[in-house]
């Protein structure tokens, strides 16, 4: 289980996370929604140890990752896979080498085994036949799928998705959402998705939480979330300009 306990983070005196508390259930997909620039990515970067909080704890299976040294933190990170907003593929490597990268770094396996695993996961994400292409030669949706393949290659316990559908057309967004669901069914990971795509959140999330002004203001199953009486949640879900959310 992942627990964020009273997590606070400020940038230039502006509080982005303010005593934030949330639990991410094992083997379930939790979608954290919120406004752009509202601290969702900051929260995600704290979970993987890319940022350190001003105060509070990040507990991964009971272990506070901010108390770990570099080597111990890297051991914890091996349990994670992360899909970045723009894929964050290594642009000097082709699709195959990008997906094979974690295998080459962390496992001592033969080239044949690497090929087998990479082609299998590329097939899972629907990218068979694209292995020789460079990241600059593929579309945004394909880059995200390569990112998913790379994140899944080591069979991680926890998958983090940083706005997986941002910048994609509705059809490609649905393709990515279906991919997340099918990969979750196959690999059974704990998923954390941050997004402002409400339709995608309802589709992929077992649990939906809303981050607003540095705090989690709503947390529950998709159905409960749809029927929330919180005016901030209602405004965000309806996408209305009128309401308590200041613009």
């Amino acid at each position, binding site marked *: 289980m992942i627990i964020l306990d009273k997590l606070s983070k400020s940038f230039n005196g502006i509080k982005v996370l303010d005593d934030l508390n949330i639990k991410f259930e094992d083997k379930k997909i939790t979608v954290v929604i919120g406004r752009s620039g509202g601290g969702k990515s900051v929260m995600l970067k704290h979970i993987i140890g890319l940022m350190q909080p001003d105060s509070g704890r990040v507990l991964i299976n009971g272990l506070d990752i901010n108390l770990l040294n570099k080597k111990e933190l890297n051991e914890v990170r091996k349990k994670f896979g*992360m899909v970045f907003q723009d894929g*964050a593929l290594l642009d000097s490597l082709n699709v195959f080498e990008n997906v094979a990268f974690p295998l080459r770094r962390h496992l001592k396996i033969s080239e044949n085994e690497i090929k087998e695993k990479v082609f299998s996961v590329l097939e899972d994400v629907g990218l068979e036949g694209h292995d020789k292409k460079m990241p600059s030669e593929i579309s945004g949706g394909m880059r995200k799928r390569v990112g998913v393949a790379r994140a899944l290659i080591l069979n991680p316990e926890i998958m983090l998705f940083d706005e997986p559908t941002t910048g994609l057309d509705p059809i490609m967004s649905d393709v990515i959402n279906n991919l997340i669901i099918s990969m979750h069914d196959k690999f059974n990971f704990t998923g954390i998705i941050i997004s402002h795509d409400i339709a995608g959140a309802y589709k992929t999330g077992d649990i939906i939480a809303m981050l607003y002004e540095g705090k989690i203001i709503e947390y529950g199953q998709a159905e409960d979330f749809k029927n929330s009486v919180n005016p901030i949640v209602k405004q965000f879900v309806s996408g209305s300009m009128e309401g308590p959310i200041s613009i």
Partner: protein
Amino acid sequence: MNIAIKLLSPFEKIGNFVIYTVNELGSIVIYMWDMILSIAAYFVNLENLIDQMIFIGMDSFYVVGLTGLFTGMVLSLQAYYAAKIVGVTYMIGPTVALSMLRELGPVLTALMITARCGSSMASEIGTMKVTEQIDALEVMAVDPYYFLSVPRVIAAMIMLPVMAVLCSLIGIIGGYIVYVYFLGLNHVTYIDKIYQYIKLSDIYNGLLKAVFFGAILSIISTYKGFQTSGGAKGVGKFTTQAVVLSSVYILFADYILTSILF
């Protein structure tokens, strides 16, 4: 009130500059420490190291060679005008060789490699930083210092002396061409006097300088790459800083090392 602010303003600027410099030096020291920890924690990736050695060494051969050639030729020509006045044209060979081996070979090589490879290191790492590729490496439990900095720094420290020797040799050959073919002087004197006046310490002290220059240019360039923020404009800004700072530090270190070594 305005006068007080105007009076304080220069002091404020000096103070800010001092704070910035100390902060920057401290950050570089921490960065170097992180790199040393990375070397201690993992074996150096040979494949990466060889790639970088080729990039810094072999791929820079033409630019370094041309720099050495023309510098040696100019040196020979300039030395001729001065030596002719006092009748010591036989000293042109040692003048060219000593200048190249002790000073110009290592310094010019370092400056050319800073321009060619230092800028590339800073912009490559900088682009990776702004496109979250560095974050991706960290998430994949790959130490970015180990993966990106260590091979570049070690390769620069190995290849700079090699390139400096080549630059010096080509410079001496350039000087010889001018001495013999353009000035019409005796080729035996040129070579003979070089043998007579050059000591082994001139060569290895020059090499030692080149090792330091390699470390300076690669550490500053990779450090600036990791510091990059602010998109494409940021990459440009930090790449420029990398080249300017590396060049200034190389020249500064050259003075310090020359006063210690020779």
